[in-house]
């Protein structure tokens, strides 16, 4: 058990982890197709978004931070102005709650591990958990 706790930080900061990350990419290969279908129109092919309208998905805390927040945005959508860096974005994002837990997990894992992004994959289980929490709070 103790060994397990020591190993995790080692894995996180291990520069030889590229093989493992490649595995994430592979796992998210369906993610790219789903991204193209549901997200690309606004967030663009390179995740750079549209200045003033749709925020970038590249190297921003909202994408790379805790997965729960990100899952919530996909499930409930977003409206109002948000600020990233010096730029404001004010177009509304529709809720994509009609997508399955598996599809959302694939999209988010793809988004979190592309265009220079590196963050933990998001599991369907995490998506399901957030979905049920949202249902509980009206």
């Amino acid at each position, binding site marked *: 058990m103790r060994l397990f706790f020591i190993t995790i930080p080692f894995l996180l900061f291990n520069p030889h982890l590229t093989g493992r990350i490649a595995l994430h990419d592979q796992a998210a290969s369906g993610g790219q197709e789903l991204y*193209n*279908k549901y997200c*690309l*129109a*606004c967030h*663009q*092919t*390179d995740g*750079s*978004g*549209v*200045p*003033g*309208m*749709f925020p*970038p998905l590249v190297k921003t805390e909202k994408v790379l931070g805790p997965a729960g927040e990100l899952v919530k945005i996909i499930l409930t*959508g977003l*409206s*109002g102005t948000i600020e990233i860096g*010096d*730029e*404001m974005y*004010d*177009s*509304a994002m*529709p*809720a994509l709650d009609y997508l399955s837990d598996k599809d959302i997990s694939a999209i988010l894992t793809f988004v979190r591990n592309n265009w220079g992004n590196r963050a933990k994959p998001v599991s369907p289980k995490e998506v399901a958990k957030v979905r049920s929490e949202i249902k509980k709070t009206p």
Partner: protein
Amino acid sequence: MKTLKRMLLSGSFLLLIFPGSCQQSKPSDKNQGDNGGLTLQPGFSAVVFADNLGSGRHLAARDNGDVYLALRSLKNGKGIVALRDKNNDGVADSAEYFWNTLTTGMDIRGEYLYFSNLTEVYRVLLFPGQLVPVEDPVLIAGGFPSQNQHQDKTFALDGANNLYVNVGAPTNSCTQPDRTPGTPGLDPCPQLERHAGIWRFKADVPGQDQVRDGYHYASGIRNSIALDWNYTNNKLYVVQHGRDQLSYLYPDLYSVQEGADLPAEEFFIVEDGDFFGWPYCYYDQIRKIKLLAPEYGGDKNAVGRCADAKGPIMAFPGHLAPNDLLFYTGSRFPERYRNGAFIAFHGSWNRAPLEQEGYYVAFVPFMNGLPSGDMEIFANGFAGVDIIKSPGNAKYRPMGLAQGPGGELYISESNVGRIWKIDYTPR
């Protein structure tokens, strides 16, 4: 590393040459033999009048050559920047920021500077010789609903003391929720009551409210950031942003290519009581027909109620984002430009995954109030790259147009706030 060192050295070198030029509006290179990065028609030249001003929107030029630029985000806590060329070398050497909200529209009539934000239009007196207004701006028209997209309350002024304000649609095509596949359009669309049209006000009466005092001049216009008054026939002209995402929302009906090309950005003459079709209709510029939108039962062929919607005088390819319109009344440019229309195309985002288009200023020749020739690209090269995959690739995005007192043309852009001044030298 060597390059970096060289850049640093040349930077400090420039500072030594121009020790007094520390205003941030000052373009770094005064020679500017490269037209400020633009490609222009023969005989025309450009200089960078001012640079790095902020997120530029519309702009206006005064009789004395002062230029006022609207800023979509506050810079130094201010929403308008006033520019002056004090030493008459052709570029601004003074930049003063004022006003405490962001702004979008900008125009000058007589002694008054008119400007707007997302819900209001103001005006303020400009005293002779003074760059920054000293009086408090007065609210002329307000009470517009706040909304999450197409918010810019851009406007035009006519010669009879009227103010025409663009109120954009708060959605893509009047569905609830917005931009969600499989969602039918609300019918009738309740958003047409307060949005998606032009409201007319008196240009000199303070405190007017959209509902109480505004005259609902025209309807069914999705968003017309680009609008101008044409003094040759005394009519209002606008260029509409057509709806988005035909292919994304209706992949079984529209291919990716069709979604990128359709629908048109429409050029309208707007007269009292006109209805142009949003959200029920869109214009197919390839087949030259106004068609029923898929949210309202359209199948790419059905016309239905759109037979009654007023059509465009010209249709541009989809998603180019016409963000300003200017009828040229000067005599500095060749005769064929007189009374013709300049249009600033901000550039598309909605063609993805295909290459983006636009990002240029176009010219349309006019005769008797109607286009007399095809659209031509007047100024290009804003993006700084040949292929634009996403808007983020573009270095500059043309945004606003203004005519200077000598007939020169000013072009603003929205990324960093550069202003070019275009001149013409007869050969």
